[in-house]
């Protein structure tokens, strides 16, 4: 039973082996705990969400008076409008910024890349404050000066700007990475025919990178769809169904927040239903794009 080591002392092989198994088991438990947490959240979401879901939730707008006519339509539409506005502002800047990173080199380009990472790590509530100061306050001052009583400054536009700022670093990064994957031979072939750099980028390189860029965009959209903090002081939320760009607008995250912090079974139900819809929206955007682009990647080669 007793084995001796090289140096003649008592062997501790059994103890070492036991420690090994113990520590490895603990590590596996770490992974298990993380997945368990995920499971708890998702199971809760799905069960309560389904319980609270009804057709009414989807087709009715918010109705504080009559619970039977209450629904999430304005929140869903609001989220879509916000994502759309953010895209119109954020996509051109993000994609063109990514193009710049690929075309340029040198100190400025690396500084911008560094700053993009900085922008990415700023808490979204700070962005919300920034857009509040930048957009909401001037608009409300203007409204006051011109006696426009129903313009508060909070608006879908402000919310869109805030979400766009959140989008830009992600889009820039993914666009740059995807463009770098396009073979140099393609670009050289175009340049050698006498095409200008912009022609080469827009006619050859960007189309070749299309699917990768779309994936990046969808993932960025999925992320901003769930953001609440930046909307707190910008889009603000609206009980009335509105699609106006310069009025406050409801959204799924906002409506979940409001309903979850109010007492009452109906509010709780609305919060759960909203959360389920939001998660379905986010997951489907992420998963569908990943699946779709996996296929086309293989077709090209």
């Amino acid at each position, binding site marked *: 039973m007793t084995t001796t080591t090289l140096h003649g002392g008592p062997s501790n092989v059994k103890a*070492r*082996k036991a*420690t*090994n198994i113990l*520590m490895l088991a*603990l*590590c*596996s*438990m*770490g*992974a298990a*705990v*993380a*997945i368990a947490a*995920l499971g*708890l*959240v998702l199971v*809760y*979401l799905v069960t*309560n969400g389904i319980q609270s879901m009804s057709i009414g939730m989807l087709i009715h707008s918010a109705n504080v008076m009559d619970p039977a006519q209450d629904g999430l339509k304005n929140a869903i539409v609001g989220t879509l409008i916000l994502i759309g506005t953010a895209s119109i502002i954020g996509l051109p*800047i993000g994609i*063109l*910024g990514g*193009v710049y*990173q690929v*075309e*340029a080199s040198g100190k400025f380009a690396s500084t*911008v890349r560094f*700053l993009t*990472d*900085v*922008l990415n*790590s*700023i*808490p979204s*509530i*700070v962005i919300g*404050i*920034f857009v509040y*100061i930048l957009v909401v306050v001037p608009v409300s001052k203007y409204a006051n000066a011109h006696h426009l009583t129903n313009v508060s400054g909070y608006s879908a536009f402000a919310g869109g700007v805030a979400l766009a*700022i959140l989008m830009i*670093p992600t889009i*820039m990064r993914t666009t740059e990475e995807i463009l770098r994957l396009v073979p140099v031979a393609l670009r050289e072939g175009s340049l050698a025919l006498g095409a*200008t750099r912009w*022609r080469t980028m827009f006619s050859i390189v960007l189309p070749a990178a299309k699917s990768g860029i779309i994936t990046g965009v969808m993932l960025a959209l999925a*992320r901003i*769809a*769930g953001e*609440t903090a930046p909307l707190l002081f910008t889009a*603000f939320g609206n009980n009335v169904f509105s699609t106006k760009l310069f009025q406050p607008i409801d959204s799924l*995250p906002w409506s*979940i*927040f409001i309903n*979850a*912090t109010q007492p009452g079974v109906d509010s709780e139900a609305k919060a759960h239903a909203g*959360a389920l819809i*939001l*998660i379905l929206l*986010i*997951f489907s955007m992420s998963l569908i794009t990943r699946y779709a682009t996996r296929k086309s990647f293989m077709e090209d080669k």
Partner: protein
Amino acid sequence: MANIVAQSKNQLPTAPPAAPVPLKSLTDSSNKSLVGDRVYTGVIFAASLTVLAIIFGIVVLMFKAALPSITKFGVPFFFTSTWDPNKQIFGALPFIFGTLYSSFWALLLAIPVSLGAAIFLSEMAPKWLRTPVGFLIELLAAIPSIVYGIWGVFVMSPWINQHIERPIHDNHTLAQVILFQAQPQGSDMLAASLILAIMVTPYITAVSRDILRAIPRVVRDGSYALGATQWETISGVVLPYARAGIIGAVILGLGRALGETMAVTMVIGNSGNGLNLSLFAPGYTMASIIANEFAEASIEIYRAALIEIGLVLFLVTMIVNGFARVLVAYTAKDINSGGGRK
């Protein structure tokens, strides 16, 4: 011979003109294409400048808006704990404390789980298990903060209140411990730390796993060849090699915890004096006080104080994240150049 055959097969229908066409000077048409490219360069440059402008704008605009508070309260702002909107006296200490305290506990809980998961994914899991498990853990990061918030409010807080906090509080000896001293209400520091820990885990895990995976096989082989067990190899060789990067990953997690808003706001209580060391007491974070009170803050100095807190949050997260990225990049370079210092 071959030439003639080839030529007859591929007759060109029309030959280009034989007489030399007067050649355009190379500098003649310089305008059209140079202009196009110049516009192009300008446009994409402007797009990248936007990032610069935004960061610059954030600093400048927020500083300007916070100026009334900065000038009125000065440095003591960070060390006073009175927060009275009625008397217009503001001190941010409770929020700074709450942010640091909740992040501390969150990391304490998250690090073992995240590191364990990272080690599992990088060193232990068989190939077929790696992708699904990694994917599931990454899914944690895709869940929006507000969803964690409602789970925290409706499920997690009541549960830990009933199964952990009440029993501890009812036990007279345990209740003496300073960490457990307050009357458990549900929304408290423990709930906030726990939910932060869950939210931060996927980031620490992903970065740590990538770092561990980047370490070349030969490093481990050397240890095994000496008769070490797997855990001895991991703890004695692999982890030290990746030490800087893993610290970076943890600091990255810290950076995310500092800025986390919605989930924390919903479970931390937002009441009390905010300086309680007990985990069962409610508290605040910088992000939660802003989220909670900004919309109601109608007086200029009130708003300025909140914006000043936002400015602090901005600077702190920027420094923390910058530091983390430097550590991670340093480790990646170190690994790639094949040298482990330790």
